């Protein structure tokens, strides 16, 4: 029964979220009021800096962003969102879709820039 309830809630969320997602561009949610939760990762932090400089919005327009909070894990970032201490988490699109689909009240938006996934190997 609990699984069925979760499934129904998820379906409702997706059905209601899809039309809005199609209209919303990343630059719409990147503005001076947006508070970011950034998982502690050098490259992600670099991405944030690029966003801060207005370089990674979909239209290439310059928009400032609000304060950012460095968190140590995605879980901590989600806690920040749910407690209204952050508005947005920057991550990879499959992860954004995954966590948004499993959490009511969250949506995912896909950006246009792609990142590679590599492995780090000890020297």
């Amino acid at each position, binding site marked *: 029964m609990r699984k069925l309830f979760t499934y129904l809630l998820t379906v409702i969320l997706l059905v209601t979220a899809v039309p*809005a997602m199609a209209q919303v561009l990343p630059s*719409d949610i990147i503005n001076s009021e947006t508070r970011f939760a950034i998982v502690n990762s050098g490259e992600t932090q670099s991405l944030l800096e690029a966003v801060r400089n207005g370089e990674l919005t979909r239209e290439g327009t310059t928009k400032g962003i609000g304060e950012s909070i460095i968190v140590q894990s995605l879980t901590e970032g989600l806690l920040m*969102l749910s407690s209204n201490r952050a508005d947005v988490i920057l991550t*990879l699109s499959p992860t954004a879709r995954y966590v948004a689909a499993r959490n009511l009240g969250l949506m*995912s938006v896909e950006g*246009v820039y792609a*990142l590679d996934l*590599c492995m780090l*190997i000890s*020297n």
Partner: protein
Amino acid sequence: MLESVNTAIADMHTDGTLGALWNSNVAELGINDEPVAVVPAVIEGAQTVRVGVSGDIPPLDYTSVDGKPAGYNTAVLAEIAKRAGFNVEFVYMETGARFTALSTGRIDLFFWQLGFERDVLSSDTFTGDLEALTKDLQDVVPCLRSEPYASAKVGWVARTDVVARSDSALLELAREAAAWVAAHPNATPAEVQAYCAELGVDDVCAVDASGAIAISNQAANIGFNFADDEQSAAFLPILRNEITELAQPATPRGVDGAMYRYAGVAGGIDGGLTQVGMRVE
């Protein structure tokens, strides 16, 4: 090890293995499907490589509630280990600890590291200096980076209330409200209030060609002229046909100083504009 890992990745790209693993473990993973752990085969007498996983980019790097990796990370590592001829021991850790873990020998390999795509670096659509953002890891920590095994777009996880306050979402609501006002030119504050609830906003008002509020959900605001306050005056260019719409950042509103996020579009009352507002806590 770098060479054997890179060879395995290149072969898996070529023969379609990586694409198939991505599809089955990421792209086609059902919303309620729990990623399945792939147990790497044990190669007798081979070196054991300790692989750091964080669970921080599910379902790409996923760990279950008991801290054990599952899904894409285990499937990719099991295949690479089989081809490169080593055994795998997964080590769960916080993402931020990966460089220290590598440099102190606690792990031999960390499953994921983000890097910019070469295609993006040369993209005409990108205006920033991405080269300056790309780290040369060898200068920072004593570790090597493998060839890419996957690529994914940047994404955002946002609260739905944040998205609802986005410019495009608010302007769409303002356009809906203008059509409603045009169809209800004599709406009372109570009727507008009911419409606000239906639309999911806190405030709807329509201004006539002189800049005065003629229709509002708040009776006390009727008659207030947009020209009398800096916040509301920002919308007057709509009346002068200089712009057709405006989404305003959260601003103290002229009527009472409360923080609101407003969007306005031409229309509603003939020669006027219609505005929707959401209170910002």
